[in-house]
Every structure is written in structure tokens, then in C-alpha cells.
């Protein structure tokens, strides 16, 4: 025969040294406070499951802000209401850790209402212990979202009024309506039966996490004798008489048996895999280009404008990539946001042999206009002696200025002839390069296959470039 003992569970620190120099064996909680019972139940469960070494307790803001004084586990303190978000960060980082978000009713149901709902809804594999004492303990007995109708607190001195504060919020019921959580139960700390119930629920909520079943939530109706200004014994009776009728003590959801455990594969990735995924392994050596090409390259300040779907942004990208490939400096910047949704789009592209300052082409020396409004908008900005390329398929007027060079090309019709109206932009680039001879138009052939996502359209786009070249040769040979 030997003595079996019920004593301070192993997952408590022997001495609560973080608490300060004195009283290192008692908690900072008031006499009869429910937090203490819960700490005991949690530590006991962690020890029994043998997971205290890999557990991390998230201390909230509230009376249990100092929960880290007690748990001989990893400990972290979170901002008011954010414990489920912090727990998400912890758990996603180290899925094998056992993460417990421990929160009061102000923390969980008021300021952190969204964090708890969303963590639950994502089905984070974590355990949440929700201590519902119908009051803000730490800050001096103010009203909580769970404060009962008529209950007097320091901020509801005449009793909670429905007209002013609405009804107490039932978090378990709300969480249980979500699809993701595996287990939601409300318990209480009022007598032998309810305490045992709480023990079972908390064990289950932790076991679910160990088994990788997902989100478990235990709400515990717990006494706050100080906030309620009654004795510990009366506090338990008060829970029975007043809280339990409004907050039924029961399981609201338990599908842990039906849920598969969620294994998360973790492995290291080689540099090669990383580069492959990031699309960087296809990048090769710097191309050899004659020094004279770079030296003599006149900076191109391009503005390409049209309506959405005409490929003005991608024309700019392809042009910039092509010039980059020839070792030139390039920038591309789009109009973005609501402006694009209005149906018009434009981008600024700069190609240069030296470092580019501002990427904006307020005064372009190349303007490509795919539609009428773009010509109206930008014609006056073009530098004297600049070049304007007009898509005559859509723009029905001539350029008014006589100090600029103009190419009139039925870009859209040429592209339609190839069966791909959207390739008008490539017709344009072919024409632009053939006309200016700044870069061999064939250089575009190296870029287009990489730039175009729909691979079956690559050939047509290459043909479009050639059509642009052909149009210049036939109509604008210099």
C-alpha cells in the first residue's frame, strides 16, 4: 500500500519567482477567484498528457495577465483581445507546440470579438479557455459584454439596461454556429459536479489539439467575488442562480470524433527549389551588347495609353523587359486603382543608358495612343520632335501638332487580321522598333514567350510584331 496524493500539479512552477520576491507559492488572484481553479485544472491536464514541455500559454490582458507567473510551460503575454491572433502566429510557426489562449470576457467577447471569431472560423488547431465572470475584474469591476441584465457594475451603476447596452452575449452559442470548430462547451465552477465537468471539458479541448483535430473552445462561468462584492461561497451560488439560467451549461458542438487529424508537412527547401518557385532560376547571364549601343541610346520617355483590355500595360512591360535584356536601365509604372476601373489605362516607360530618376513621363518623347481620349489627354504633353503612334482603327482624328513625328497605323485591324485583337499592342511595338531602329525588333522575340502567360497565344503575338514591322517597311520606310 502507498499514499497517492492530490497536490500542486507538476506543470506549475515550484516557486512563482516571476511574481516577485515574496509570496512565491500563492497566486496573485483574490480569494475564491475562478482563475486559480482553472489554472489548476489546466496544469493537471497538461501534466497528465505529458505535453507541458511543448505547451505555450498565451496570457491575455485582464486579471490573468500574469498567468505566466504560474505555468511551467512556454509563456507569452498578448495585447488586450488579441490572444487568438498571437496564438495563431505561434501555432502556425510551430504546429507541434500546444497553444492555449486563455482569455477573460472583456478580452474575448468585447475588444477581441473579431479575433476569436476568425480564429475559430479558420479552425486554428488551438485550445481556447474563456473565463466568463460577467465583469471586468482587473480594471475594477466594470461592465462586460457578458454582464447580466440588471447587474450593477462600476460602469452600469443602475444595473445593465437593455436599452443602453443590449443583452449579455453568449459566445459559445455564437462560436458553435461556425463550421470549423470541433468542440464548443460551456461549463461552470460552482460545485463538485460542475468542476468535474470543467475538468473533462478542458482535457478534451487539449486532447483535440494534441490529436490535431482543430479549434476547441471551453467557456467557464467563473466567480469574481471581488468584482461582484460578495463572498466566494455566495459567488458560486450567484452563478447558479443568475448566470446558469442565462448561460446554459452544456456542450454546443462536438464533432471531434468525425474530424480527421490535420497533419502538416514540414520540410526544408533547397536553394534550387526556392529559385525555381520564385521563377529566378531561368534568369541567366548578362547579355553581351556593344558598348556603343549603350552609349548612343537616346532616353525614351514613353507613355502608352488606351482603354482596358488593349494591352497598354503589358505593351509597356514587354518593351521595358526587352530593353532591360539589352542592358539598358528601365522603369515601368502604371496608372492604377480606380482610374483603371474607369476603363482607361496608361503606363509610363523609361528606357535609358544611365540611372533613371523619376519614373514618371510627364513629357513623353514617345506617345502611343490606342484610343481617342488618350490622344486628347496626352497630345499636348509630348516633347517637340517627339513621336506619336496613333491607332487609326479606333482614333478618328489626326494629331493637331506639327512639331512631332506621327505614325498612323491601324493597329487593331492588323491584329484582328491575325484573329487576336488583343495583339494590337504587339503590332505597335514591332512598328515602334522598326521605325526607330533603337533596338532590333527581333529582341522582342526573346521576351514575348516569357512575358505572355497564355502560351498558346505566343505565336500570334510574335506574328503581330512582324506585322507591325511589315507595316512600317511598306508605309514609312525612311
Amino acid at each position, binding site marked *: 500500500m502507498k499514499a497517492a496524493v492530490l497536490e500542486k500539479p507538476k506543470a506549475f512552477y515550484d516557486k512563482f519567482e516571476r511574481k516577485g520576491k515574496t509570496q512565491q507559492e500563492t497566486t496573485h488572484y483574490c480569494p475564491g477567484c475562478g482563475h486559480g481553479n482553472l489554472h489548476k485544472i489546466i496544469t493537471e491536464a497538461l501534466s497528465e498528457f505529458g505535453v*507541458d*514541455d*511543448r*505547451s*505555450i500559454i498565451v*496570457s491575455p490582458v485582464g486579471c490573468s495577465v500574469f498567468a*505566466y507567473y504560474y505555468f511551467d*510551460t*512556454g*509563456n*507569452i*503575454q*498578448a*495585447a488586450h483581445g*488579441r490572444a487568438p*491572433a*498571437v*496564438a*495563431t*502566429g*505561434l*501555432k*502556425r*510557426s*510551430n504546429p507541434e*507546440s500546444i497553444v492555449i489562449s486563455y482569455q477573460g470576457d472583456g478580452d474575448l467577447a468585447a475588444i477581441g470579438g*473579431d*479575433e476569436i471569431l*476568425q480564429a475559430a472560423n*479558420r479552425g486554428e488547431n488551438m485550445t481556447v479557455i474563456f473565463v466568463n465572470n460577467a465583469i471586468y475584474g482587473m480594471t475594477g469591476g466594470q461592465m462586460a459584454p457578458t454582464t447580466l441584465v440588471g447587474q450593477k457594475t462600476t460602469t452600469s451603476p443602475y444595473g445593465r439596461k437593455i436599452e443602453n447596452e443590449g443583452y449579455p452575449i453568449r459566445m459559445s452559442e455564437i462560436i458553435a454556429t461556425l463550421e470549423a470548430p470541433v468542440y464548443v462547451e460551456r461549463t461552470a465552477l460552482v460545485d463538485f459536479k460542475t468542476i468535474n465537468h470543467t475538468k473533462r471539458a478542458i482535457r478534451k479541448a487539449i486532447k483535440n489539439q494534441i490529436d490535431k483535430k482543430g479549434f476547441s473552445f471551453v467557456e467557464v462561468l467563473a466567480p469574481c467575488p471581488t468584482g461582484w462584492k460578495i463572498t466566494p461561497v455566495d459567488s458560486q451560488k450567484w452563478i447558479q442562480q443568475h448566470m446558469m439560467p442565462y448561460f446554459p451549461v452544456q456542450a454546443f458542438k462536438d464533432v471531434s470524433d468525425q474530424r480527421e487529424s490535420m497533419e502538416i508537412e514540414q*520540410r526544408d*527547401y533547397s*536553394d534550387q*527549389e*526556392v529559385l525555381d*518557385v*520564385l*521563377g*529566378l532560376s531561368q*534568369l*541567366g*547571364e548578362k547579355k553581351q551588347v556593344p558598348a556603343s549601343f549603350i552609349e548612343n541610346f537616346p532616353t525614351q520617355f514613353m507613355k502608352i495609353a488606351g482603354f482596358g483590355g488593349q494591352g497598354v500595360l503589358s505593351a509597356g*512591360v514587354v518593351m*521595358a*523587359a526587352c530593353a*532591360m535584356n539589352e542592358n539598358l*536601365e*528601365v*522603369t*515601368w*509604372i502604371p496608372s*492604377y*486603382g*480606380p482610374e483603371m476601373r474607369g476603363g482607361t489605362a496608361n503606363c509610363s516607360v523609361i528606357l535609358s543608358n544611365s*540611372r533613371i*530618376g*523619376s*519614373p*514618371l513621363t*510627364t513629357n513623353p518623347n514617345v506617345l502611343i495612343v490606342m484610343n481617342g481620349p488618350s490622344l486628347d489627354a496626352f497630345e499636348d504633353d509630348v516633347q517637340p520632335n517627339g513621336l506619336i503612334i496613333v491607332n487609326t482603327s479606333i482614333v478618328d482624328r489626326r494629331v493637331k501638332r506639327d512639331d512631332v513625328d506621327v505614325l498612323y497605323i491601324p493597329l487593331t485591324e492588323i491584329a484582328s487580321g491575325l484573329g487576336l485583337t488583343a495583339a494590337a499592342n504587339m503590332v505597335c511595338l514591332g512598328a515602334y522598333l522598326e521605325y526607330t531602329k533603337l533596338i532590333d525588333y527581333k529582341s522582342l522575340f526573346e521576351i514575348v514567350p516569357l512575358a505572355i502567360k497564355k502560351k498558346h497565344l505566343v505565336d500570334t503575338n510574335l506574328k503581330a510584331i512582324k506585322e507591325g514591322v511589315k507595316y512600317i517597311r511598306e508605309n514609312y520606310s525612311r
Partner: protein
Amino acid sequence: MQKELIKGNEAVIKGALMAGCSLYFGYPITPASEIAQAAAYYFPLLGGTFVQAESEVAAINMVYGASAAGKRVMTASSGPGLSLKQEGISYCAGAELPCVIADIMRAGPGLGNIWPEQGDYNQMVKGGGHGNYRNIVLAPNSAQEMCDLTMKAFELADIYRNPCIVITDAYIGQMMEPVEFPTTRKKVPYKEWALYGDEKSKKNLVTSILMNTHLEEEHNKKLQKKYQTIAENEVLYEALNTEDADIVLVGYGIISRILLNVMEILRKQDKKVGLIRPITLFPFPSDFISQAADSVKSFLVVELSNGQMIDDVKLAVNGRKDVHFYNRMGGAVPSVDEIVDVVKKFI
């Protein structure tokens, strides 16, 4: 091709992944959304985590948790989102958690608009959240620097156990430029203080609460000392033609690129114009600006704000020379010619 033509915002994510970052938590906002989108695309392919958080508040607190768990982690947003993150950033600073936060600034106050501005300078460089803390703040002005400085941000954050901000404007975020990426991924160091969820690390506590006034004061002093060390060792700036300059232009982000053109144009007209571009906003290149003040006649600070960085320039110049100011706000960006005219008024 040796380089990739890529948007600044996407370069942030590729840089982050090469820096060993494995978790991203964020909430969409123009003009920073490409960062979240690139993260959503790439992180899962490399065993990392992307979570679209319910808010910026949640996002920064997820970052807090993941950083505490020893990982390299980041988030990104713009003005209104950064305002929401401030409490969490203060917690990270207080608990000495390394993390990287990108701020692609848009116009404000309030919802403002999505065009570029630099009105977040004070909230990111001076504190923004509560308490005596500083962020390390890096200000890229090209897509290449969006990658490089994001990678550097992870290093600095870990070295100093401090939040590190990559701050820029909508234009630098939206612009595509050639970027050369590193070819090896950085290894994340083991962190003695972190919570790995194992026996070895369970002694650790991550917290920013110290009820004892003496301990909280000591902690604050330790933080101030750390910021001092950062100020002594981590200043970065670019200086062009300052030696013989009569007037030095000062600007960061997109403004620094416009000022480069301004300087080039005026130099061609034999005007002695120089340029200082702070790359770190905290620590600020105060010593260099102070030295420059010995020889130059005046400074012109150009900002897309009501005048926030200018305070730091003035502190460095300390009344010895004139510090002129030119600004645009609300998303308007000055043209090169506009600033050339302004400079001419002062020389």
C-alpha cells in the same frame, strides 16, 4: 537575362523569402496589396504560411506570435492599416520581438486616397504607438532596394530584436524595374529567447509588461541604449555632389528620384546642387547632414507631406543654415521642372 523586371511590391516578397521569412500575415489595402498577393502565391509553395488576417490589428498580433515562435515573419500595409497596427508594433518593441513591416504610403488623413504620399513619416519614424520606442526604418527608392532593404530589414530586426519598417510610397511599390536577386536563401538563426514549443525553450517568457516601476525603467533604459547603438552603427544614406554644393536637396523615396533629375538639370546649368537621400530614416543621417551644413549655403527638403522629415533635417542643421521646404500633398507628385524652379529661387 540576369535580372527580373518586377514590381517593387513583389520584390519585397521575393526578398523576404530569400531572407528566410516563412510567415506572412496581412490585410489587403491599395497600394500595398501586391505584397499580400505575392505572399499568398509564393509562401505556400515553399512550405510557408500566408494568412489573410481579419484586420491589420490581427495581422500584427499574428506577427507578434510568430516572431515569438522564433520565425522570420512580416506584414505589410498602407496608412490606415499602419494606424491600426500601432498598438501591436509597440508591443513588439516592448517585448523586443523582431519583425518586418512594409508601409507603402498613400495619401491621408483618414481614407485619403491611394496615391503616393509620405505622411506616415512621423507615425513610423517617431513612434506612432505608445511608449518610449523606436522602429528601425528603411526607405527604398527602387525595386532593387525593395528587395535588398527588405532582406536587410530581417537581418537588422534579428540583430537588434526590434521591429524594422520598410517604408516607401505608392510609386516605388507599383513601379517595375530590373532586380537582381540573391541565389541563396538566408538561414534563420536560432533564437535563445524564443518559444519553440519544446523543453529547451519553455523557460522563456515573451512579454512587455513589467509592473515593477524600477524594472520597467531599467527595461526602458536598456531599449534607449539599444536605439543609441543602432543610431551609431546603422545609418545609411546616399550623397551626391555634396562636397562643392551651394544647395543640397534632401528627399527619400520617389522624391529622391525626382530630385536626382533636378540636380542633373541644374548641374548642367552650372548650378552647384547636391543631393542627400536618407536610406535609413531611423537612424537618421544627422551627423552627415550636420557636416554638410558646414560647407553648404542652404538645404531644400522636399516631401510628399506637411513637413515631417524636415524636423530631423533641422535638428541636424541646428539653425546654422537655412532649411527650405517644398511639398505636395494629397497624392500629387511634383514634376522635375516644378522643383527646378523652386531651387532656382534659392540660388
